[in-house]
């Protein structure tokens, strides 16, 4: 996991809370006599947003893990709620890389490994782009070497 992912998550959280906060601020400033509950809601959004943006990314970074062995792909993700996902290499169907705008900015990538289960994609977030590419090649090779239709 690249240390830059803390920055990534911070940016994502900040954008999320700004999207919630800014319209409220505009309404508050435009409307002539805003009701008190609106002010309360705005302050609550601000406080929760700031705390969340400050705490969540580094907490998440401490939790997140990933590992691949010749037999399986493994991730641990989340912060308050945590989830391990394990997928055996022999059951892998597709391997995708995904890069959002922030990730491109920071040179990061997400590798998604799907199996035949509708519920079981394993996502490895916040990898350095080169590491991600290397991982994809590695997984593709091991997957191709495994026979069967993986269901």
């Amino acid at each position, binding site marked *: 996991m690249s240390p830059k992912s803390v920055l990534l998550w911070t940016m994502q959280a900040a954008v999320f809370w700004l999207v919630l906060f800014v319209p409220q601020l505009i309404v508050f400033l435009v409307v002539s006599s805003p009701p008190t509950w609106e002010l309360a809601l705005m302050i609550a959004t601000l406080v929760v947003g700031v705390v969340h943006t400050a705490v969540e990314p580094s907490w998440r970074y401490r939790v997140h893990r990933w590992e691949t062995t010749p037999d399986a792909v493994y991730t641990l993700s989340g912060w308050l709620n945590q989830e391990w996902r394990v997928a055996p290499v022999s059951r892998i*169907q597709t391997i995708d890389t995904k890069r959002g705008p922030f990730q491109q900015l920071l040179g990061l990538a997400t590798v998604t490994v799907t199996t035949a289960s*509708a519920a079981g994609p394993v996502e490895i977030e916040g990898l350095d782009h080169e590491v991600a590419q290397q991982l994809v090649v590695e997984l593709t090779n091991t997957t191709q070497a495994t026979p069967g239709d993986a269901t």
Partner: protein
Amino acid sequence: MSTPPEVPTGLPAAPEFTEPLSEWHRLHVRMLVVRPLNEGIAMLVPILVLLFTGNGEKWRLFASGVTVAVILAFSYFIWRTTKYRITDDQVELHTGLLTRKQLAVPRDRIRTVDLTSKPGHRVFGLSAVRIGTGQQDAPGADGLTLDAVTQEEAERLRVLLLQKAVAPKTASSDEPQADVAVPEPEVISKLDLKWLKFAPLSLSGLVAIGAVFGVLSNYADDLGLHPVQDLWEWLFEHPSFTLLGAFVVALVVVGLVLSVPLYILQFWNYRLTREPDGTLRVQRGLLTTRSVSVEEQRLRGVDIQEPLLVRAGRGAKAVAVTTGLGSKGESNLLLPPAPLSVAHQVSRDVLRVEDDPTTRKLRRHPFAALRRSLVRHVVPWAVIAIGLAIWAPSWAWPIPVAIIPFAALVGWDNYRSLGNALDDRYLVTRNNSLVRSTVALQRTGIIGWRIRRSFFQRRSGLMTIGATTAAGAGVYHVTDVGESDGLALADEAVPDLLRPFLISDSTVEGQAVRNV
């Protein structure tokens, strides 16, 4: 009109493998009549409303005429532009007028064949064929449907498509059934009229009332009436518990009365058979007949579902855990609501085991799971009650408060439901209270784990283990199991998958995993 399902006429003529099928076929020409008939029924009410609500103005006549003409033209173009063929490797379907679609399904990926005949189909001796593959289909692309061909053709396709799919298996398998190749299907279960007593318990009548009500209020909306809204407003002005009570009682009575004919409609002639070509086949239906065939090799397990009231009557229904079937229209149903012993017998016969894995003695989950279950069921109602007490009229808040004891009971029952077991072939897990579900999942069908610990679960030392699979719901959960028990279960169910990530059995496992 149609051939009765007791005589599977297509079967004896089945092994006609060599016939070249690679020519293009059209859907049956009778669909020109059947499609307007099937779809016209839905349009009938709006057309009648359109015709008769005015004073016979010209434009109303004209509009109805146009609607009918559009339906007819539409079905003609669908027929005209749809063709299919079956080659040695795949089933191909070309369809669409404005958007041309070309679908191809590799034949060795075909897992299920579902034949459905609505009343319109049956009058003309037709049947729609839906071909299901694995779950990785693009969402919305619900397999491949030929709507419709003659019943003989449908029967032939069913045998042909699934036989091909099964062919490699007979070579390598050790099943005695395969070599004997008896042409007679083996009947696993048949409808018994005594099962009708489960019809009222399954609450299907209430669901039907809901559906009918939805349709009616739609039409009422078209007419500019708003009965629901009016009723609500009236109720708010005259809050009366006797009226509400009478309404609920009436609803329940009508629901009970309706449920029996509904059960008959859905499950008349129900038969579950094992066909000689290695498929399991469910046939059922009074007006709309269905025949769902599942490649037996793809069956990953069985789910015994016990809705609360059906459970109280010691009944259950059985559902197949398999690839290639959605739960849409209950296509994965193996057994309608029936006595529990029958459900276990079906499960046993379908899975070809000595005794049904879902009857295994289940390991209880830790006491902390009870606390979580109670909290999860009671707290939402308490929150609603508080909310209503602050913001709603004073008669509102006692309702959620009155519900709380029942919610607590459900929470307690939910905890009692929780359990898991492992035998040499199946992982068994039980969940839920309102529809208690006991799933036996083939251990070889597990293709990964999702192990989840919420904030509160971590504090109580619990985890929810999800076994992911290509079949059925995609993931089956062992809810609120103790940390070390859960990891041991997962490790034992699929050896060597989790092992590299667990530090060692000698350390405290909950601790160990946190440090991986």
